[in-house]
Structure formats: C-alpha cells, structure tokens
C-alpha cells in the first residue's frame, strides 16, 4: 500500500469559452484547477463532487483523452520505467493505455451496437497484440467468465444484454490487457441499486484477484463510502478535501464536504435530520480571488472572499479552507 502508482501534480485543465468567428476570447472555464494528489498501489481512490465539479474531466485528463493545459502526471508501473503522461507522445500513450484502462459511465453508449462481444472486448487485443482466431476467442471467453458472464455470449451483440451485463462487458474490456490501474468514471451510477451492489462486489473481487488499483469517480457518497480507501472531494475544479474514507465520513472538515454528507438521503422516513447544513445554491458568478466556495459557504468571512485558502493538513486530511478544523 505504500508504493505510489500515480502522482498528479499541479494539474490544470482550462476550456476557452465565448469568442466568436473573428475574435478570440480570453475567458476560460477552469474545469480542473491546480489539482495534486497521489494514488497508492492497490488502493481504491474515490473522487466525488457535484455535477460540474470537474471530476470526469480530471479522470479524462489522467487518461489523456483530454490534453491538460499544464501539470504533471507520473505513472509508475511494475516492471517498466515510470512515464510522465502530460508530455507523452502517441506511442507512449498507446503503451500506457494497456496498463491504465477505463470503465465508462453509460453502458449504452460505451459499447458499439454494431460489433459483437468478441470484437468489443477483444478489440484491444486484436489491435495491440494482433491476437486473432481461437486465441482471441479463448481469451475473451475467459474474460467473460471472470466478470460473471457466460462464454456463450461471445457472438452476441450488445443489444442482447441488460444494463448490468453491459457494464460487466465494459469491465471485461478494461481487464483484457491485465492493467494495473482502472479509472471507473461513474461506473455504477447508470445502474439500479441492486445491480450497483453486484457490480461493486465484482469490482472488489477482481481487485483482490488481479491486484488492481482503482480510481473511482462518483457522485454517490454511499457508493464511495463502501469501496474507497481514500476520497478526494472536488468543488469547481479544486480538491477541497482529501482524507481516508473513514476520517471523511466521521469528521468532515470542509464546509462543502459537510454539505455533501448532509445531503445523503437517509432511508428511513421517520428519521429526523437535525444537522442539515443551510447552503445556498451556487450562483454562477464566482470570485476569481478568494475561496471559490465563499459565496455558498455559511461561515464565509471577508478573509474567505479576498484570499485563496491555503492547503492545511489536519489530522491526516488535506483541506482547502481558512477555517478548517475550527468551524
């Protein structure tokens, strides 16, 4: 658990906005803003946040589906030299993409409806290893069994599968190259609750079996609490709190984390929620200097509105708040 598999340092991803046919606009959306963290080998690292917090963008930057504006991402593989991904060229990336795989959110759109299971799951093997014929179908059958699907499904098209089965196919595709790191982008949020549980269990079993590391992106705290070792909470492109799952749920330090936790529904109609945070809704205008959460924060002072908060380490948690631990 001590070895670092992925190190993200000062990652920025800015998208230009506005601008027309003749003029360039300088306005940018800071989808990922100065994000740093590291992921240990074998752990499950959760990234949570509301819609638009930049968690999916962060995942896609790590995968290098998007090209980050700047920053460094270092990937440490077992028997290969470590690589820096932001500056990596196509050749390096093709190689990296074998050790770092992705599971997508939408089981409908992530499987090409025109291809058979064999071609979808085996695509990476056929492309990068030139595997074909019997060898390919044997390997794909083996993968299907590993994710709890029957090998006879090899020649079927995705439309013959349910949502949960499709997501298993997505996981099988990710496993095909024996990766070390899997980025699961909202992998279970499109599934209903019982299927979510099955899929999460499957992922945990696979993690033990193949010594996998997960980066688990989600908006559902209940999901994250169960399977993650450490959790990063994102708000408007920044990691506002990073702590172990236990610590985060026991003692949230950032006001935003508290607001998130208090928003988790309690499955008991008679339960009173006394401690619900009173948080105003986000208004689009965000101050460029100062804390980005300031105009939603119930504890905000002039200090918050004018000065960006430093990163504080309080009992093992990294928190981005002036008054972390005090409020």
């Amino acid at each position, binding site marked *: 658990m001590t070895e670092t598999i992925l190190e993200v340092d000062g990652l920025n991803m800015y998208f230009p906005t506005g601008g027309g046919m003749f003029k360039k606009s300088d306005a940018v959306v800071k989808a990922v803003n100065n994000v740093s963290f590291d992921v240990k080998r074998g752990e499950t690292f959760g990234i949570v946040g509301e819609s638009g917090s930049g968690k999916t963008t962060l995942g896609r930057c790590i995968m290098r589906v998007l090209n980050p504006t700047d920053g460094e991402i270092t990937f440490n593989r077992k028997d290969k030299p470590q690589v820096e991904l932001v500056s990596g060229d196509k050749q390096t990336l093709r190689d990296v993409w074998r050790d770092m*795989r992705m599971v*997508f959110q939408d089981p409908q759109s*992530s499987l*090409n409806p025109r291809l058979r299971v064999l071609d979808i799951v085996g695509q990476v093997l056929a492309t990068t290893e030139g595997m074909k014929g019997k060898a390919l179908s044997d390997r794909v059958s083996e993968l299907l069994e590993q994710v709890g699907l029957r090998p006879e499904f090899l020649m079927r098209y995705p439309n013959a599968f349910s949502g949960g089965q499709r997501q298993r196919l997505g996981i099988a595709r990710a496993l095909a190259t024996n990766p070390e790191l899997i980025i699961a982008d909202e992998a279970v949020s499109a599934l209903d609750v*019982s299927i979510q549980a*099955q899929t999460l*269990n499957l992922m945990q079993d696979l993690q033990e079996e193949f010594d996998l590391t997960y980066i688990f992106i989600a908006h559902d705290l209940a999901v994250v609490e*169960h399977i993650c070792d450490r959790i990063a909470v994102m708000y408007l492109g920044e990691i506002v709190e990073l702590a172990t799952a236990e610590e985060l749920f026991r003692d949230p330090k950032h006001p935003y984390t508290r607001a998130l936790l208090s928003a988790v529904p309690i499955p008991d109609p008679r339960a009173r929620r006394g401690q619900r945070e009173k948080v105003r809704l986000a208004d689009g205008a965000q101050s460029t200097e100062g804390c980005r959460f300031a105009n939603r924060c119930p504890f905000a002072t002039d200090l918050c509105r004018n000065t960006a908060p430093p990163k504080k380490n309080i009992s093992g948690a990294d928190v981005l708040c002036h008054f972390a631990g005090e409020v």
Partner: protein
Amino acid sequence: MTSVTENIPVDNEPQAPELLGPRALMWRKFRRHRIAYFSLWIVGIIYFIALFGDFVAPQAHDERNRRAIFAPPQGIHFIVEEEDGSRHFQIHARRLQMEIDRATMRRTYEEDPNDIIPLGFFVEGHEYDLLWMIPSNTHLFGPVDADDHVYFFGSDRLGRDILSRIIIGTKISMSIGLVGVAISLIVGVTLGGISGYYGGWIDNIIQRLIEFIRSIPTIPLWMGLAAAIPLDWPPLRTYFVVTIIVSMIGWTSLAREVRGKFLSLRNEDFITAARLDGLTDWQVIRKHMVPSFSSHIIASLTLAVPLMILAETSLSFLGIGLQPPIVSWGTLLKEAQNIRTIIEAPWLLIAPGTMIVIAVLALNFLGDGLRDAADPHAH
C-alpha cells in the same frame, strides 16, 4: 461490505432465442414498414425497366407512324367472338380506324371490334442490343405480327408510342438520379467529413459556403447554368453537365448530415474506448464511425434521388435541360406544354406525369422506411 447483496451472476435466463445482428434487426424493422417494403418492389421494377428498357418496350421509341398521329390509348381485350358465335381466349387489341374531319383537320379514331391485332408475350419485333451488348429482337409483350402497331398509352404528334418512350426515358431519368446522387455523395461526405472531424476554421468556412449555396434560389441558378450549355454539344456531354448542375444543391444537405454525425459520434463513449484500445484515428473512422452512419447516408441518398429526378424533369420541361432527341420523362412532359395538346391528347400529360409521381413517391416511401429502420434508438 454491509448492505450489499451477494455477488451472483446476473445471467440466469435459459437459451437466448435468436442472435440478431444490427443488420438483421434493421431488415426486420424495414419489413414491418409495409409501404416502404412495397415501394422497394416498385423501385426494383422501375430500375429493372431502366436496365432492360429495350426488351420491355413493345416498339422502338423513335418509330414514327403517320397513320397514328395522336392515337388514343388502346385497351387490351381477352375474349374473341367468332362470326359463328363461338368464343375463345386470345389476348388482342382492336385496330384503330382513323377519320379526318376535313373542316377542323382533327383526327378521330374508332376501334373496330371485328379487326383484331393478336398480342403475345416474348414476341419478335425491332432489333436492339440488350444491355448494350447482346443483339436481340425479342420483346416482353406486344403484337405478334411485327408490322402491327398498338399504342397502350396512346401516341404523340409524330405517331410515336408513348409507352415505349416512357420506358426508354426511364433509363435517363432514373440514372440521372443515381449519378447526381453519386456526385453529391462524394462531395458531401468529403466536405462534411472534413468539416466534422477537424472542426475549427475549416468547419466554419465549409458551413458558410453551404449556407451561401442554399440561400441562392434554385430555379434561376439552374437556368443560368443550363443556359450556358452550348446547344451543339453531344447529348451525352449535355447529360453529364445537367447531372452536375442538378447535384450542385444536393450535396449541401448531405454534407450537413455527415458533419452532424461526425460531431455526435466523436463524443460517444465507444469512440473514446476504441481510441483507448489503441486504434488510430483512421481505424476509428473506418471501423466505428462510418458503419454507424452508413445506413443513415443510404436513407438520405434514397430521399435525394427523387429530388434529382424532379430537378431534371423541371429543367427539361422548361426546355433548358436535356434536349430531344434524348428521351427522358422531362422531355416527354415538354410535349404536353400547350392547352391544345392537353385537350386533344391528354395522355401525353397523364402518362409520363403518373410515371414520375409513382417513381418519386416510391423512392420517398423507401427512403422514409430506410431512415426509420436505420435509427437504432427508436426501438
């Protein structure tokens, strides 16, 4: 793990009924669209006629007959009554007797029930080359005696058989649709693909160009271009130039469609997944993008064919498209331009007009059916 259930495999249903690929599903869906399926047959027959026109046509399309000017359509009869009262089966037409009213110079025709022209299948007639290669003189249907003339759809001012002319015209009219659509396809897919794949300023330029072309009123544009065709050009060259003029507009909508498909597919997860699987951009386009929208393209091409046919017809009707002696549905309609002809010989208007309506409707229904069947999200 506290509240989560045990991990049981989710696939406990017995044997799956059928393994249907997307293509089989599309076909099944298309079959369910009755009108479209019927139209497929109509279109098939029309293209068969276009290919084997000389075989199907009972007469040579340019054979004149001074004794049958503006002859009305003749009916087909089946039972012959002999003088002794006995009846027997014989497909036949009745010979027309012409009378000229000397005062008005109008011809009137009277069918003579006693003078029959026997008809038959696979009869011998004028010589032609089947598919431009095989010399033959067999015709699908017509008078048994090659010297007889029967006008099922009437005849025109030179006594030429309208049915045979419509059949021969099918070749030009239907092929101009295909050739025009082929040109639109090449230009549209190339420009639309570039526009959608690269985006940015090049996308901007192509889109503005399309908007510009579409904002020009079509008829004046066609007229201007067609008027520039020298009259002494050989018919074949005129034909191709007219095709190009007609497809000038057609490619724009196709290019937009292709661009839209590229843009929407670019964001599909399975495209990202394919890139992560190590496929190059070109492989992604070839293996994932093109198959995903090829059925849409086929559907919109089918819908573009009738537009091309109508465009050719309008141009030829206005006298600026194809010129006689080329026979197309448009040049046939041109014969029916004045009131006198329409009153004296309405079949000159009705016969080719009906043919155009049938062909255009059939192609439209076919295109609609294909488009519905091609949409995977509308299950």
